[in-house]
């Protein structure tokens, strides 16, 4: 008799929620056919426990209780604690298999290597986008620099206090503009290798992303509509969320040929924090809709995109337990709808 889907699924228990446990959770939650029954760590502040909760995976500090779960097909022990194997042997169900010791270390090394490769890929995608931005960045910097140099040159030899004061104010304004741009670039280009989870205001981050997107294309003829309903702060790495929003906004603006309406919305719906990014472009062709998140899929000209943007967007959204869905009808624009579970809210 053919096994049912539930019988085919692998029910996994993860012991240890440090770096190894976190990497395992990130990888296994992306695999269909694997369900994580629970994650245990004696340290209640272990980072993997928070990540597990993002994904609605039960967490506990009671290792013996989790090990004894009858439906577990596999226990993966990445605690590194020499006392754990005997505890597992005492409590586990006879049919549950155990991956521990050197085998678990090998798996952990492989996962770490995969994780590092992804981090490099995500960073390379950001740098590649920065490369595409180069002309826009030069333009945005050179304009205020031109003003600063011009007003400074005209200040030389000037004796009228009113004029000196006026030109100085202009220089300060232009310098502040440069400084804001540097901050935005720094937020975007920061590497993902040092996770900095912090409370983030989503509307503020969307506004930052619009400024960054302006480096790639003119936004003067794009009407930006902000429908920001109040949402709780999220506990995330701001750099990662910024990357998501910049990518989606640039795609939206490019789809509209830099002319149309860009609507950014935030809200709370049924236990989820929702962000939508909507354009009034021609929409995505039905045959492309299913492939937009596939790595290296692009409809842009060679050299204009890596084809990794939306793949990375979805990976980051999934990392925080969220989902992203494109809604598009040819001729009626595209809406990307992101939902994050409110458990990731601060």
């Amino acid at each position, binding site marked *: 008799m053919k096994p049912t889907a539930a019988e085919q699924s692998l029910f996994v228990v993860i012991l240890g929620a440090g770096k190894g446990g976190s990497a395992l959770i990130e990888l296994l939650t992306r695999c269909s056919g694997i369900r994580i029954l629970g994650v245990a760590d004696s340290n209640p502040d272990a980072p993997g426990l928070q990540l597990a909760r993002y994904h609605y995976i039960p967490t506990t500090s009671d290792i013996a209780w989790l090990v004894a779960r009858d439906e577990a097909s596999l226990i993966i022990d990445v605690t590194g604690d020499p006392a754990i194997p005997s505890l597992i042997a005492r409590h586990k169900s006879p049919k549950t298999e155990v991956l521990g010791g050197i085998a678990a270390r090998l798996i952990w090394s492989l996962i770490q290597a995969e994780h590092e490769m992804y981090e490099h890929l995500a960073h390379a995608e950001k740098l590649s986008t920065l490369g595409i931005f180069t*002309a826009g960045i*030069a*333009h*945005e*910097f*050179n*304009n*205020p*620099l*031109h*003003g*600063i*140099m*011009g*007003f400074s*040159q*005209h200040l030389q030899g000037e004796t009228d206090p009113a004029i000196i004061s006026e030109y100085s104010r*202009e220089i300060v*304004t*232009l310098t502040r503009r440069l400084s804001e741009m540097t901050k935005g670039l720094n937020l975007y280009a920061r590497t993902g290798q040092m996770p900095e989870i912090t409370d983030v205001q989503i509307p503020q981050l969307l506004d930052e992303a619009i400024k960054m997107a302006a480096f790639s294309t*003119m936004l*003067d*003829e794009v009407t930006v509509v902000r429908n920001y309903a109040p949402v709780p702060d999220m506990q995330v790495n701001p750099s990662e969320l910024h990357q998501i929003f910049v990518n989606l906004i640039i795609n939206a603006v490019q789809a509209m040929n830099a002319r149309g309406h860009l609507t950014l919305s935030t809200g709370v719906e049924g236990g989820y924090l929702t962000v939508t990014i909507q354009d009034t472009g021609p929409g995505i062709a039905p045959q492309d809709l299913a492939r937009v998140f596939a790595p290296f899929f692009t409809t842009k000209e060679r050299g204009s995109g890596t084809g990794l943007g939306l793949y990375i967007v979805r990976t980051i959204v999934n990392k925080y337990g969220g989902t992203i869905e494109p809604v598009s009808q040819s001729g009626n624009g595209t809406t990307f709808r992101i939902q994050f579970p409110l458990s990731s809210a601060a």
Partner: protein
Amino acid sequence: MALWPFGVHDREHPSLGVILVVDDEESIRKISRLTLTKAGYEVIEAENGEKAIEVLNTGENPLTVDVILCDIRMPKINGVEAIQYFRTQYPSVPIIVQTGFPDLNLATSLMKQGIVDYLVKPVEKEKLLAAVSKAAEQRTTCNT
């Protein structure tokens, strides 16, 4: 929109020429205006390509404008589109591009279309004045 020139209006001291400054940024137009009027030019301003075309088509401006100083990245009609129009309609008016884009391909393409100089911001005032003076001279030679 300033249809009347900033700068020298004294008939006893005629200006060195009339310059149409096209840039979407107010502070950039202000710097250009300061530099050029202090040097003795009259300045007319436009904040995008569409306004520039409108200004150039107004009254005697087609005859009196000596040099167009034009930005590239602007809303509505951008610099590239405006320059195409100027070169077709007013081929004797020299055009200097003053832009934040250090783009060699764009510079080459615009030079082929007949612009006289491509200046990348930030531009020192001496460099701007030298370029404008050379272009105004070219306009005078054309008219004589």
